[in-house]
């Protein structure tokens, strides 16, 4: 079924558990998983697995499933940030990515980390929740159990998994996007120009309008992710270059905002402003500026 291509579990045990689930999944379920795993979340619609339905909307995640209890969701919301923090803390020590006080919605993870978090969440939830409630273990399917009840459990499990996954990738897996005030007339921007703007070396839009640059605090993971992924440089380089401008009197640093909410607000009210947002939350006040 080729599940290896889209699943990269961290350890063999989890992988085995996962193959067991997939082995019992229908073609429709596999396709659904592939669709979601391939991050094609922009497609609207209600997806159903046996016994579990989830409605997927492009940027907001909605849960619409009679089988998913509120307590399950609460648990998922409680557990996943914990694990994410653990993971990110491990990453922090290498890349200075994050701060323990970061709120869940400010955490940015790459797809590989999402995978491992989900697999972990799946395992934890399975152990904590399903074993208690249904008294079954999925990685050692009991042949004597009736296939119906097992299918229901597997399907529910996949469904939960997917919903968590949808929630995660729709909110967190991509680097922040470039946002500008609607007064900016450019339709796209090159990475080199973007780097010159955030390096505070290019100060005007082509039509002569002054550029106002907003950035998040240095230790904010959205900031770090944006600088690394979108500009292709390291945050410490930009900090040093900004300091050079400030303390030699030859330029000005960008304006620091405390949060993405503030970023959005300031960009909306400042003509010629540029910044970034990790959530695809655009309207007539702030515009997405695609990178060429």
């Amino acid at each position, binding site marked *: 079924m080729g599940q290896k291509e889209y699943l990269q579990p961290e350890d063999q045990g989890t992988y085995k558990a996962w193959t067991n689930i997939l082995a019992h999944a229908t073609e429709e379920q596999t396709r659904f998983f592939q669709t979601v795993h391939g991050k094609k979340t922009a497609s609207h619609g209600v997806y159903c697995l046996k016994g579990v339905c989830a409605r997927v909307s492009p940027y907001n995640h909605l849960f619409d499933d009679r089988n998913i209890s509120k307590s399950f969701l609460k648990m998922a919301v409680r557990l996943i940030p914990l694990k994410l923090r653990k993971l990110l803390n491990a990453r922090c020590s*290498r890349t*200075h990515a994050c701060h323990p006080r970061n709120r869940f919605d400010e955490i940015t993870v790459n797809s590989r980390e999402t995978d491992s978090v989900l697999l972990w969440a799946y395992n934890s939830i399975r152990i904590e929740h399903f074993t208690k409630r249904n008294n079954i273990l999925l990685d050692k399917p009991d042949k004597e159990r009736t296939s119906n009840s097992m299918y229901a459990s597997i399907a529910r499990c996949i469904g939960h998994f997917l919903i968590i996954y949808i929630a995660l990738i729709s909110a967190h897996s991509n680097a922040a996007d470039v946002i500008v005030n609607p007064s900016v007339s450019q339709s796209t921007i090159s990475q080199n120009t973007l780097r010159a703007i955030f390096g505070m070396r*290019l100060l*005007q839009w082509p039509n002569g309008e002054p550029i106002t640059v907003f950035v998040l605090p240095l230790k904010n993971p959205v900031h770090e992710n944006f600088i690394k992924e979108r500009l292709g440089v390291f945050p410490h380089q930009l900090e040093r270059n900004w300091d050079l401008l400030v*303390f030699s*009197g030859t*330029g*000005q*640093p960008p304006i620091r905002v405390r949060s993405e909410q503030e970023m959005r607000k300031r960009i909306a009210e400042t003509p010629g402003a540029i910044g970034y947002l990790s959530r695809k939350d655009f309207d007539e006040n702030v515009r997405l500026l695609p990178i060429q």
Partner: protein
Amino acid sequence: MKMYDYYRYSKHVGSHLRVLTCSLAIGVCVTLPAWAIDAKSIQVHGFASQAYTLTDKNNFFGESTGNGSFEATELGVNASWRMFPELQLSGQLLWRKVGNIGNDKIQFDYGLVDYRFFSNEQRHHGLRFGRIKNPLGLYNDTRDVAFTRPGVILPQSIYFERTRDLALSSDGGEMYGELRFAANTLGWELMVAQPRTSDVDTEIALLGADRPGHLGGDTSVIGRLTYDHLEGRLRLAISSARLNMEYQPGQSDPSGGGVIRFTPTILSAQFNSEDWTITTEYARRNFLFDDKITYVPPSLKTITGQSYYLQSEYRLTEKWELMARYDVAYRNVDDKTGQKFEDMAAGAIPAHTQFSKDWTVGVRWNPSPVWMVRAEQHWVNGTAWLPFQDNPDRAKTSQHWRLFTVLVSYRF
């Protein structure tokens, strides 16, 4: 009016002007934060640093032997106003009490008008007028800001403390520009200005003591060419200066007057990865003294100094960084051991004043983005960059010495 009186007079007027500009600038700085709230084109920043220095022999930054010295305080505040994208005004006031180097008065560090007359996505060109930071090497522009330095003290072989005023900023004009092609940037700065030599320290450094005459700056040229790949992933620079000064003899001055020319050339390279920053710089410094200046012995009228260092910084975590550096300076490439110099001075000035080799290890801790704590240990062989100001009798200095220093710095 006699020449000497004229110079005294001009110094007097100069100090009044300085007081006036300082008080004006302070006034502006005090009222600025109120505007800055709604005017995002105005920004005010500053820093404060305090260091503790302990040496086993020789003094560095005050009387650092024995119980150590706290005489290393740096305070600065700057304001910038980008009136239009093409025009920026900026100025910085600096107060520094570092051993016996410099005076502890508020200095006008820089104050300039920056006019960028051409700008598009590929390049920009502009002009600066006023008191401008000298574009030399990688660190000179911001050498007094602890946050921008790679250690508590800069590599002394190139960024001498004792002639800091000369290297710091100059009064005049500068042309600059930048070409951007793909991920690369080529920047240049060319400055025609008068070096700041009013400081008695420059006189001490160049003429050996505070002489009765006056050392004035003449029109000088400083230039720098920088190649940048990905905002400094790789940065290469060549900078050079031709600093012209003139010594005007004072009353009953045993020496005649004449021109002193200082021509440093610095090659710089820096590589940045996520965790590492590797930096190296190499400098050659040519000195030329007029024959009439008798404070300098004939054999030292034309000398070439040489310096280089290799430095690596490693970001251990987001809060901790390590640094190691090897730093070498020779005051005269024809006399690297200093033996000829010692012979000439008949033993009065030891040979080790002519070279220095400094091994440094340091650690940096960032408790928050605005606070920084640093500690650093130096093992030094030689006293080429040891400030005379802290060690008036050079015969009493020691060749092998150790320096330990801790610095706390705040910025806003």
